[in-house]
């Protein structure tokens, strides 16, 4: 029987009886200082998002809203292709992006390289897509030059997450699956995690003032269920599973796509770089990350923290010593 049926047989933890007013105040004050039992660590899980099969249907967005009962956050026609969600936020934990690349090869030829002019600058490798001899081959059909790229964006669940480092309350934790989870009962909305995230994933909700983002369906994972978006995705563009397994699968897929002529196919966040950890939610992209609104080379702000402290403390101490010197030496009768 599928987990979808098994789960119903499990008993729910009992709800506490509602306390009185004094009890409420006490609970409110003491709650953050109570600790839960840390669960047994499990193999790390994550998302592998294969953009080459994304059909831009946004099932992930609605499935996420449905499961998590997230509010709709406003009706705005953006004019940016079919993307009216605009961005990830406390209310939208999945965001499908649309990038229209039409006539780019032609316009590339007409354009001085590097003058911008469009956001859909393709990788140079794109030119390699058409067979060199120009013959029509029925066996290997070159990928079309005109593309409409689609990608479902989500929290990256960084192995070393800046938001988690930033969080002063310990609301953001790595759970037993290695996912980055904001404990909604702890977060007090300081917004430091928002500032720290290089991917612009987190915002603060208008409704409760707390930071929210993808939980990787922690509650579903607890009961052996696949996260709502990955489950709904009709084309397996979003895949969920143990990260190690996903990375293997993804590497194979890249090879396959390269063989089919997608020279630019590559994985984003598959490995740690000089400045950033690997991502537990990683992507297969068909163009430069920036084209999809991802930082080409994300930098973990904590890379600089030690040096920044050093300069600060050095100058602060210098200031204090200077002051001390002035006070001790100046104006004192000789």
């Amino acid at each position, binding site marked *: 029987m599928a987990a979808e049926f098994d789960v119903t047989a499990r008993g729910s933890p009992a709800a506490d009886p509602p306390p009185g007013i004094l009890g409420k105040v006490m609970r409110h004050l003491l709650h*953050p200082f109570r600790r839960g039992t840390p669960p047994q660590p499990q193999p790390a899980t994550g998302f592998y998002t294969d953009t080459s099969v994304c059909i831009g249907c946004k099932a992930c967005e609605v499935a996420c809203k449905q499961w998590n009962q997230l509010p709709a956050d406003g009706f705005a026609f953006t004019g940016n292709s079919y993307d009216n969600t605009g961005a990830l936020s406390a209310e939208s934990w999945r965001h499908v992006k649309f*990038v229209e690349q039409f006539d780019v090869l032609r316009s590339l030829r007409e354009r001085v390289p590097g003058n911008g002019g469009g956001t859909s600058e393709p990788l140079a490798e794109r030119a390699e897509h058409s067979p060199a001899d120009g013959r029509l081959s029925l066996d290997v059909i070159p990928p079309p030059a005109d593309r409409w790229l689609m990608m479902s964006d989500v929290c990256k669940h960084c192995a070393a997450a800046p938001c988690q480092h930033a969080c002063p309350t310990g609301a953001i934790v790595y759970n037993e699956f290695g996912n980055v989870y904001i404990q909604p009962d702890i977060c007090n909305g300081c917004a430091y995690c928002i500032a720290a995230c290089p991917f612009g994933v987190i915002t*603060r909700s208008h409704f409760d003032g707390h930071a929210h983002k993808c939980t990787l369906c922690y509650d579903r994972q607890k009961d052996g269920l696949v996260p709502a978006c990955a489950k709904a995705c009709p084309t397996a563009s979003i895949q969920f599973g143990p990260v190690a397994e996903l990375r293997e699968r993804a590497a194979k897929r890249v090879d396959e796509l390269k063989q089919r002529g997608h020279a630019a196919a590559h994985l984003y966040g598959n490995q740690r770089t000089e400045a950033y950890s690997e991502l537990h939610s990683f992507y297969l992209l068909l163009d430069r990350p920036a084209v999809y609104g991802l930082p080409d080379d994300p930098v973990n702000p904590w890379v600089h923290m030690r040096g920044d402290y050093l300069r600060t403390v050095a100058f602060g101490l210098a200031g204090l010593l200077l002051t001390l010197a002035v006070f001790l030496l100046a104006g004192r009768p000789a």
Partner: protein
Amino acid sequence: MTPSPTATGYAHREVTKPPNWHGLVVWDVMLNAVTTGVFLVAAVGDLARPTAFAPVAAWAYPLALAVLLADLVCLVLDLGNPLRFHHMLRVFKPSSPMSLGVWCLTAYSLPLTGLAACALFGWRTEWLHPALLVVALPFSFGSAAYKGVLFSTTAQPGWRDARWLGAYHVTSALAIGAGVLWALAEWLGASEAAGLLRWATAGLILLGVYPAVRFAVEFRASRVVMVVVTVLSFVLPLVLVATPQAAWVAAVALLVGGYVARSALVHRPHRS
């Protein structure tokens, strides 16, 4: 939202989201500079030249406490859920400048309260006063030091590149503190302390030039802000150092200059 003129894609947009930090946070950073600057300079003076600084210190500690309390109010009110302010004390997490800062501020506030109380009620004991000072000093220093690093340890445009932001903030805080105490000393007629503070102010302003220039370059501050801050925080107070009667002008210039710089700092990501 007005639709963009064409389907523009994502490549030329800032990826990060600005935190919801606005006016209250500008005041927080400013008040942080004032309370720590005032306290640190006063404490050094109090320890180095107790007699000369006694009248100034009697005003400085309550002032630092009042400013600190105002700062804390700003901090709490700026939370998405102010009723959960105490969650800040749930963990001690040195990896987070904010956590470190909260603990420093808390630890700084306790001896400072004692010092302020001593000053206000005239309790002056041989051992308690220096003990409180010694306890408060590192935490006050930490409170000043964490603030700039908190901003530079983010992914926000402007902040993330500002390697000298922390150094700027802390030297600026000391200069402001010295300037304010100088004006206070002049007003109280504590001429010896005033004379010392005059030179301290000048020295601290000069010390702050280097980090400020580095910060301004990395931060890519707007020209208007740079001119205003240069005049108010550097040129004007230095010119006025020779004019004791104008101490309050120098102090106000330092305060306003510091505020302008911090306002530009806090709002930088929202401009992108």
